[in-house]
């Protein structure tokens, strides 16, 4: 399992492909394509952490642009719930994050991936009482 797991919707995936086409050094991450970011519930994000990921990045479309209308809203709620769970069990909520990108916003996507990579480095493996706030 990579340190960073990225769950990215089909529409936003174009941004990752554009980054690679433009020769940008894309941080190492396990990329999982989902039909819509709304598909990613809190259980999925938490499972990724339990199975070895240090951080999870959920990538959806910009507000108003979701092809399923409200999927990205659902994703935000789910990520907020995952963060709440992490706080309650003594882990850092910074391990899970969501961003919204258009398919052309490859710089924004890569920046977010780098941020999650830095957090993965800082927070280390998931472990209670050590490394997490």
């Amino acid at each position, binding site marked *: 399992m990579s340190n960073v797991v990225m769950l990215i919707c089909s529409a936003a995936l174009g941004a990752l492909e554009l980054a690679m086409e433009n020769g940008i050094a894309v941080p190492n991450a396990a990329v999982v394509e989902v039909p819509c970011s709304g598909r990613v*519930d*809190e*259980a999925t994000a*938490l*499972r990724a*952490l*339990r199975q070895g990921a240090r951080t999870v990045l959920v990538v959806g479309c910009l507000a108003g642009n979701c092809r399923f209308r409200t999927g990205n809203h659902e994703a935000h709620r789910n990520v907020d*719930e995952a963060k709440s*769970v992490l706080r*309650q*069990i*003594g*882990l850092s909520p910074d391990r899970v994050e969501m961003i919204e990108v258009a398919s052309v916003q490859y710089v924004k996507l890569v920046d977010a991936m780098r941020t999650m990579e830095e957090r993965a480095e800082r927070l280390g493996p*998931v*472990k*209670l*009482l050590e490394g997490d706030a």
Partner: protein
Amino acid sequence: MIIAERKDLARLIGMLEGRRSILVAGCRSCVAVCQAGGEREVAALAEALRLHAAAGGLERSIETVTVERQCEKEWTREVAPMVEGKDAILSLACGVGVQVMQETFPDVQALPGLNTSNMGAPVEQGVYEERCGGCGDCVLHLTGGICPVARCSKSLLNGPCGGSQGGRCEIDPETPCAWDMIYRSLLRLGHAELLEVNIPPKDWTPSGHGGPRRIVRKRAVLEDEET
């Protein structure tokens, strides 16, 4: 439907201390509708507990199941193979479901994962309001479909108190005055005359004040030879 809320995760973790093999059991009925204990909530809670166990180096096995209705043994009996060998059942059903699970599996402790609150209805997604007081002597035919027991803060039966202001309750201004709603509903229904019907003091025995209630539908009870 029955409205319930999940207990705090910290509280649940405390309840499960020392348990190594747990079955998280949801219900597809009321608690699924109010998003407290349905299949999705079961999956989310199980993952949270597994992550807590993994991160804390605890040896713990967590399985999940969602029962069609945890209040009926016809369905709870079906999960017997999954209960086998477990230290505890963490039930995400209402209080009824937890107790029926305990009755079905008397040798494995059933723990309540939810706080059962009231009988109500969704007013919009994610918002559930109490509607029925379970008094056992319904007067909705006299009150335009608005329950004075559940929706009046004082459960008044014959009109508003002196504190009703601008259609709002003096106990909580966020709460509409039930008798204001009753008045408007009866007017709309063309039955304003019902406002003059005096509802006598309630016998609260059927509401549970006389002990646990039991209703027998004789027509449905099976003879010995039918079971």
